[in-house]
C-alpha cells in the first residue's frame, strides 16, 4: 500500500468508526429482543440475553469447587456420578448442598482446603447440577416462546409441556384450534390482516378515481377543491376519534371490522388523493389525448391507462398505508378494542398484564414485527420514494 493510499485510508477511519458504531447501537436493542425470544423462559429470567452463548449459570462455580475431583462432566467418580438424577435430586437446593459439602468424607473435609461455598455460589452449583443431570435440562435456544405466544398460553411452564402432561388450561385444545385463541398472537395476526388489507385497498381505489377526476376532467371549482383537500391533511387523528366513536355507538359499528375499514379509508384519503393526483397529473398529456382520439372513454382511460401507469405511486402508497395500519394502536384500541384484538392491541395488553414475562413479550413483539420487516426489506425502494414524495402527511 502506497503512503498516499494509507493516508487516505486513515483519514476515512473516523467516518467508518462512527457510522458502524451508530449502526451497531441501532441494532443492539432489536438483537436483544430477537435473542431473548429464542431462549428458554428459565434462562430469560435468570441471565441477561448477552450471556446466551456463554456457559450456563453455575459453570464457573462448578469448575471452582467440584471439577477437580468430579471431572468437568461430573462422571469421574463412579460412586458419586453427578449426572445421576437420584443423587442430584437430594441436593437440589443450596442449603442441602452446603450441608452435604460440610460433611466429612473418610474423616477429611469434603472440599479439602477449599472453603465451603456461600449460599449464592452453592445455589449456582446446584442449578448447574440440575442442568447436567437432566432434571432441568433445557436447550440453549428454543421455539417454545413462539408457540406459547401464538396460542396465548399463560401457564407457568410452556404450551408443549402442559399439553404433553395434559395439564393445559381449559380454553386450550392442544391442536390447531389453539391458533384461534382470542388471547393468542395467531388470532391477532389474522385480525391485523383483516383490518389492514381492506383498509389499504379501499382508500387507494377511491383516491385513484378522485385523483383521475382532478387530473383529467373539467369541472367548476377543481383547483379550489383540491386545495381544500390538501388542507384536510392537517386534521390530526385525535380530533376525529370522539365524534366517530359516538356515531359508531349509535350505529352499532363499534368493534366491527367494517367500522375500522371505513375510518382508515376516510382518514387515509386526503394524503392518498394528494399523492395520486401529483403522479397522475405528471403523466404526459399526449397519452390521454391520443387514447381519447381513438375513442376511449374516461372509464377505459382510467382502467387501461391511468391505473397501470400509476403502479409505482400505488406501490408507495400501498406500503405506507399498510404499514401505518398494521402498526397502529390508537385506532384499533378505540374502534376494535378487545372485540377483535389486533397485534398491537394484544401486545399492549400483554405489557400491562404480564409485567416481566419477557420470553412471551419478546416473541409476541417479533411476530408483530416480522411482516413489516419483510415488506420493508423487499420494497425499500418504494418505501423511500413514498417518504420523499409526501413528507407533509398529518
Amino acid at each position, binding site marked *: 500500500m502506497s503512503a498516499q493510499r494509507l493516508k487516505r485510508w486513515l483519514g476515512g477511519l473516523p467516518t467508518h468508526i462512527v457510522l458502524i458504531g451508530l449502526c451497531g447501537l441501532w441494532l443492539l436493542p432489536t438483537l436483544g429482543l430477537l435473542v431473548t425470544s429464542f431462549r428458554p423462559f428459565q434462562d430469560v429470567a435468570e441471565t441477561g440475553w448477552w450471556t446466551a452463548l456463554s456457559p450456563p449459570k453455575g459453570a464457573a462455580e462448578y469448575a471452582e469447587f467440584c471439577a477437580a475431583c468430579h471431572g468437568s462432566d461430573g462422571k469421574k467418580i463412579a460412586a458419586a456420578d453427578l449426572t445421576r438424577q437420584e443423587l442430584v435430586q437430594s441436593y437440589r437446593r443450596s442449603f442441602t448442598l452446603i450441608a452435604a459439602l460440610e460433611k466429612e468424607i473418610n474423616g477429611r473435609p469434603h472440599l479439602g482446603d477449599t472453603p465451603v461455598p456461600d449460599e449464592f455460589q452453592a445455589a449456582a452449583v446446584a442449578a448447574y447440577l440440575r442442568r447436567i443431570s437432566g432434571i432441568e435440562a433445557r436447550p440453549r435456544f428454543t421455539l417454545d416462546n413462539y408457540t406459547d405466544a401464538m396460542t396465548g398460553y399463560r401457564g407457568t411452564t410452556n404450551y408443549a409441556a402442559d399439553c404433553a402432561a395434559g395439564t393445559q388450561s381449559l380454553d386450550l385444545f392442544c391442536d390447531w384450534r389453539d391458533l384461534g385463541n382470542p388471547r393468542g398472537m395467531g388470532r391477532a395476526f389474522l385480525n391485523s390482516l383483516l383490518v389492514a388489507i381492506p383498509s389499504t385497498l379501499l382508500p387507494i381505489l377511491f383516491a385513484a378515481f378522485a385523483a383521475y377526476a382532478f387530473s383529467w376532467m373539467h369541472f367548476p371549482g377543481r383547483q379550489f377543491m383540491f386545495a381544500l383537500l390538501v388542507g384536510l391533511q*392537517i386534521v390530526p387523528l385525535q380530533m376525529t376519534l*370522539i365524534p366517530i366513536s359516538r356515531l359508531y355507538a349509535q350505529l352499532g359499528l363499534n368493534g366491527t371490522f367494517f367500522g375500522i375499514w371505513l375510518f382508515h379509508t376516510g382518514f387515509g384519503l386526503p394524503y392518498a388523493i394528494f399523492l395520486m393526483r401529483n403522479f397522475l397529473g405528471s403523466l404526459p398529456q399526449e397519452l390521454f389525448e391520443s387514447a381519447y382520439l381513438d375513442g376511449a372513454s374516461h372509464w377505459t382511460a382510467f382502467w387501461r391507462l391511468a391505473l397501470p401507469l400509476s403502479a409505482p405511486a400505488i406501490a408507495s402508497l400501498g406500503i405506507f398505508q399498510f404499514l401505518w395500519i398494521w402498526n397502529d394502536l390508537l385506532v384499533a384500541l378505540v374502534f376494535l378494542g378487545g372485540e377483535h384484538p389486533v397485534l398491537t392491541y394484544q401486545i399492549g395488553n400483554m405489557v400491562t398484564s404480564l409485567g416481566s414475562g419477557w420470553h412471551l413479550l419478546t416473541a409476541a413483539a417479533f411476530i408483530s414485527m416480522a411482516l413489516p420487516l419483510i415488506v420493508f426489506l423487499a420494497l425499500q425502494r418504494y418505501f423511500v420514494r413514498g417518504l420523499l414524495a409526501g413528507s407533509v402527511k398529518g
Partner: protein
Amino acid sequence: MAAQAEQVPSIMKQGRATPWAYLLPALIVMATFIVYPGLNTFYLSFRNTGNTGWAGDNCIAGEPCWGAFENYRYALTSPVMQTAFGNNLKWILLMVSGTVLLGLLIAALADRVRYESPAKAIIFLPLAISFVGAGVIWKFVYAFGSGQVQIGLLNGLLTALGGQPVSWLTEPRINTVALIVVGVWMWTGFCMTILAAALKNVPTEIIEAARVDGANEWQVFWGIMMPQILPTVAVVVTTMVINVLKIFDIVYVMTGGNYGTEVIANRMYIEMYTSFKTGRAAAIAVVLIAVIIPAMIYNIRRFRAQEAAR
C-alpha cells in the same frame, strides 16, 4: 404543477355529472370521517360530559370557572395538563434536535462509504415497526431487576461497571428522557432519508470546486452543503415537531403516562376512554390541533414552493 393542471385537453371534455361520479365516493367518506368529526369535536369541547348542556352548567359558585370554556380551563391550567405541556416541550426540544442532528450526521457520513445502503437500512428499520414493538424492545433494554440479576441491557452494563441499577422508567428525573431516546431511535431514519436525498441534490461541481480551492471536508459541509439543504432541514424540523406533538403510543405502552411522563395525546385518550369525560377530551384535541396548525401550514407552503420550483 398548477399551470400544467389547467391544460386538461379540451378533447377530453365530458358530461357534467361524470367528474362527480369519480369524486363522490372519496368526498362522502372524507366528509363523514374528517370534516364532520372535526367540527363536532370543536362543538363538543364546549359541552359538558354526556353532551347534555354547556360546559359551564356544572360550575359551582365561588370556584374558578370559565363558563362555556370550562373544558379549556381544564385543558390549559390543570396540573396534569401542565405536566403534559412541559413534557411535550421536552419531547420537542430533545427529540427533534436529536433526530435531525443524528439524521444529518448519518446522511453525511453514509454518503462517503461503500456500504451506504445497508447502513441506511439499519438506521431506517425501526420506522417500519410499530411503536408498540419498539416499546417492548426498549422496555427490555430498560428492564430493572430489584434482586441480584439484571436482565436489562442498560442495568446489566451499569452493574458490570460497578454501578447501582437504575429504575429508568419510574425515576421522574430521567424517565421522560428515557422515552425520548426511544422516539429518537425510531425517527432518526426518517430524517436521515429526507436529508440524504437533499444532500445528493447538491451539485457536485460546486463541491468539487470548493475542494480544488483547498476547502477541507468540514468547510465543504458547513459552507457549501448546509446552505443548500437548509430549506429541507426546515421541512424536516416542522414535520418532526408535528409528529412529536402527537406522540401517544410510546408513552401509552411504556409508562401509561404514569410517574410524571404524561403527554397531551395520552391525556386525551385517558380523559375519553378511561374517565369518559368527552368534553375535556375534545378540548384537549382542539388545543392539540391549535398547536399543530401553524407548523402544518408552514410545511404545506414550503412543500408547494418546492414543487413549484421543481
